[in-house]
């Protein structure tokens, strides 16, 4: 009964969130982002200056001998300048036969140090996380993250809050319509004097058509982007490597809905015994153009 109530509450919350997004979408100008269809990997693409991207993303998976979890993360991404993007994530999750809880927030910043385009473009990423152990958003996998962590009941896992600093070196290239991105992740728990944890994410993607068509069309090929991701942990400073880590790989696809949001779907398959068998991911993102200018106009 409790889990049913929890699930109903989560559904209502998600419905409210979607209603808010739709309302904002109707009130503001919406445009398409140029982001590749990745869930974990970051590319060199930053938010355009003045634009705000609102995204709702979720991950659904069932750890072995555990209950199914459904995470929901609200993402607010703002292009501060041409070389700096700042972003806030608010995460929550619902676990079957357990409860629905808010798990915490992240605040990230991405910087492009080089002003011109090169064959490989670096982006520096710094993030502060304040998440409890019940977080299931799986926006990155580091250290020896294990599916056993995902079996801990919410009531127990939420007691421990981790405040950590996460840094990434993002390397990304565009050539012949392809985007290839590599992320190297280093994370440090600020509460404890534990080791640095490492991870990686690789992604490749391409639109189905390289040239735009002259006529408006709902399902023309340039509206679709397909890709694949590979990501996982790389151990810690105490034991670097792939041993006892979780690793995932899978395809992704995104679709620019005409005069609407971008929908992205992906399936990640666990490659090691420590990984969850399959994770389904979904993301709906709206980009609101020149958000503060719209507020000024409204005033």
């Amino acid at each position, binding site marked *: 009964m409790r889990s049913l109530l929890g699930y109903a509450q989560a559904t209502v919350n998600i419905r409210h969130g979607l209603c808010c997004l739709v309302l904002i979408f109707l009130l503001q*100008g919406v*445009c*398409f982002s*140029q*982001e*590749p269809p990745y869930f974990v990997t970051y*590319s*060199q*693409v*930053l938010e*355009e*200056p*003045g*634009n705000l991207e609102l995204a709702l993303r979720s991950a659904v998976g069932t750890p072995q001998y555990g209950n199914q979890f459904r995470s929901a993360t609200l993402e607010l991404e703002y*292009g501060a*300048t*041409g*070389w700096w993007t700042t972003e806030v994530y608010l995460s929550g999750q619902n676990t079957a036969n357990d409860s629905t809880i808010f798990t915490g927030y992240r605040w990230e910043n991405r910087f*492009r140090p080089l*002003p*011109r*385009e090169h064959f490989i*473009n670096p982006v520096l990423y710094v993030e502060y996380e304040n998440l409890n152990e019940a977080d299931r958003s799986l926006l990155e996998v580091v250290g020896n993250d294990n599916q056993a962590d995902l079996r801990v009941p919410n009531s127990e896992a939420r007691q421990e809050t981790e405040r950590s600093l996460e840094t990434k070196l993002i390397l990304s290239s*565009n050539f*012949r*319509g392809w*985007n290839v991105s590599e992320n190297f992740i280093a994370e440090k728990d600020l509460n404890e004097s534990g080791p640095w944890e490492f991870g990686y994410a690789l992604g490749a993607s391409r*639109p189905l058509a*390289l*040239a*735009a*068509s*002259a*006529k*408006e069309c709902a399902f023309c090929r*340039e509206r679709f982007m397909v890709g694949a991701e590979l990501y996982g942990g790389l151990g810690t400073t105490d034991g670097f490597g792939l041993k006892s880590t979780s690793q995932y790989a899978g395809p992704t696809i995104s679709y620019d809905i005409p005069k609407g949001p971008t929908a992205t779907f992906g399936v990640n398959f666990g490659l090691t015994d420590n990984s969850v068998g399959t994770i389904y991911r979904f993301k709906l993102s709206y980009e609101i*153009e*020149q958000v503060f*200018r719209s507020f000024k106009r409204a005033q």
Partner: protein
Amino acid sequence: MRSQLRRYCALLLLATPVVLWATDQSWKNHVSESDRSRTNPYTSHPDAVAAGARVFADHCAKCHGVDALGNGKRPSLRTPEVQEAKDGELFWLLKNGFLRRGMPSWSSLPEPTRWQVVTYVKSLGLSSEDHSSERKDNRK
């Protein structure tokens, strides 16, 4: 003597970004000769203007305005500086952006799409009569 040297060093450090900023005003100064001389494969393509207009509406109109006349600090694309620029120069600007001045890089758009945008932007400088006669020429 040492404190004076320190003061000069500090002054130099402070002045360097100002001097760099002052000498880095035009994006055209950064375009290499090989990029400048690139030819637009979509110049005589009959659908390129319409396709470029669609991409422009999706990605560029938010800053430069639906009519490309600019928006606040975002510049108009109908000015002589843009309209007299070579296709290769505009293509370079779309690829690299001008991050310090707020123009993002559009390198994630595929090359053919970027050329279509260049074709559309250059078509804005022509009067409607010129435009229709050019389209007739293309049809021939």
